[in-house]
């Protein structure tokens, strides 16, 4: 692990965490409270999206190799579109399930809460398994001494810092809002 880029590990954990975050609400039974066809559509789309994203982020699988051979140069474009679509679907379902709490006056707190739980679960796996494809891709951009690598590092640290500040402000507002001054 000492040879791995720690910043890349953290960012990979956050991205894996975003994939896992909706399952926090699934575990709390929010899906069962959906009305109409969404009761079936949501778990199916979420499950398919998760499989696609985990496959795309983790490592090359046998179906992927087979598809790569069949599609040739087109594979790169198709796989990127499918992965982006799966990520967008995951985020949309995540948003929907957060609203399942109904009294959701502090929306961003609950988004961050589920992201934190997902990212911590992902980090536990990232720490004790070989580097995933996602982590290697991120590490390749963050390591090295070129000006481009330096720029990526600045962007990565800036995003992490912004996330920390946003989380701090959100947590502060959450607890302040729950303790009114009489």
């Amino acid at each position, binding site marked *: 692990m000492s040879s791995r880029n720690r910043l890349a590990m953290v960012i990979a954990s956050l991205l894996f965490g975003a994939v896992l975050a909706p399952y926090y609400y699934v575990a*709390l039974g929010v899906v069962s409270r959906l009305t109409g066809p969404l009761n079936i559509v949501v778990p199916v789309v979420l499950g398919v999206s998760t499989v696609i994203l985990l496959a795309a982020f983790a490592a090359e699988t046998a179906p992927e190799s087979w598809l790569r051979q069949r599609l040739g140069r087109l594979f790169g474009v198709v796989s990127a579109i499918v992965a982006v679509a799966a990520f967008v679907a995951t985020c949309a379902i995540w948003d*929907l399930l957060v609203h399942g*709490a109904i*009294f959701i006056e502090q929306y961003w707190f609950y988004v961050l809460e589920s992201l934190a739980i997902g990212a911590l679960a992902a980090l536990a796996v990232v720490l004790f398994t070989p580097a995933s494809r996602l982590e290697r891709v991120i590490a390749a951009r963050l390591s090295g001494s070129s000006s481009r690598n330096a720029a990526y590092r600045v962007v990565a640290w800036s995003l992490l810092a912004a996330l920390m500040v946003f989380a701090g402000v959100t947590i502060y507002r959450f607890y302040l809002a729950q303790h009114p001054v*009489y």
Partner: protein
Amino acid sequence: MGQNTVSSGTPNRQTGNGPPQGAPTPPPKPIVTPFSLPKLIAVADESLDKVEGNFQAQCADGATRALAFGGDITHGTGGKVPFGEKASDKEDELKKKIMVLPKSFDKTGKAKKEFEEFLKKNSAQTIYTDPDLDKTIAGDENFIAFSDFTLNVPGSKHYNAGRVRIHQVLKTHNWDIRQVNPITGLGTAAFDRGSPVTGSDNYGDGLKIMIDAVAHVLVYVSSYVLYPADRYEITLIFELWDCFGLDDEDIQKFGYKAKMQNQFSENEGFTAWWQLQHQFDYSPLMTKATVTRSFTAKIDP
């Protein structure tokens, strides 16, 4: 009010009833202020954009007060669901759909009892009380903070030096409770602790769905004993009044107009509640909770 201050008597040195010369002076005896009825001492009201109706409340001090409410107190037929979609056109279906709310937001069964009372279709606001609700409120962290702050004793957990509350007004009147006029302008208590995601605290004990922010809190004193040397003991009765009904803003936040527009059974439940109240003339209930707390506070110079 029929209250008289009864002094149990300080020693009368002139008549020789006091302690002998040189003996230590005994502490002054306690002064008990008797109340034939509780005395109103503080009022907390929720701020309203527009008053839509009043409820004539028979209060603990024997007086009748007009408590102001917003659109949540109104009811009738022919109301148009704000922003559109209905949960159903059939009264029986609405009555089924509303019952998802106590199931989702109360693990104790208190809210179910109040919803069942609401579904009896009263023609006018009737007062709803429940001893279990009183007990839950008495132990609630936000209520304890509210009641502590109503007294506002220096050094207490929720003391706020910037606010004038019962303790400060008593001090101004030389600890004579008979001189104190009711304090107004307090912010009301709100039961919004916990997580709507996991159903913890007020999202699981029924207080969020049954009350949320309390419309009016009337605070009475029922007992007051002053120990002039160092402290006083006071018993306060907190009377909480809240309308168990919905207005258009509620439907926007939790019902049809909520972001996910009836995608969850709870969104439907809120819309069903609004429809029963404003289209099928189910009168909202007037929830009344009463909690008594006693305090002992040091007299500061």
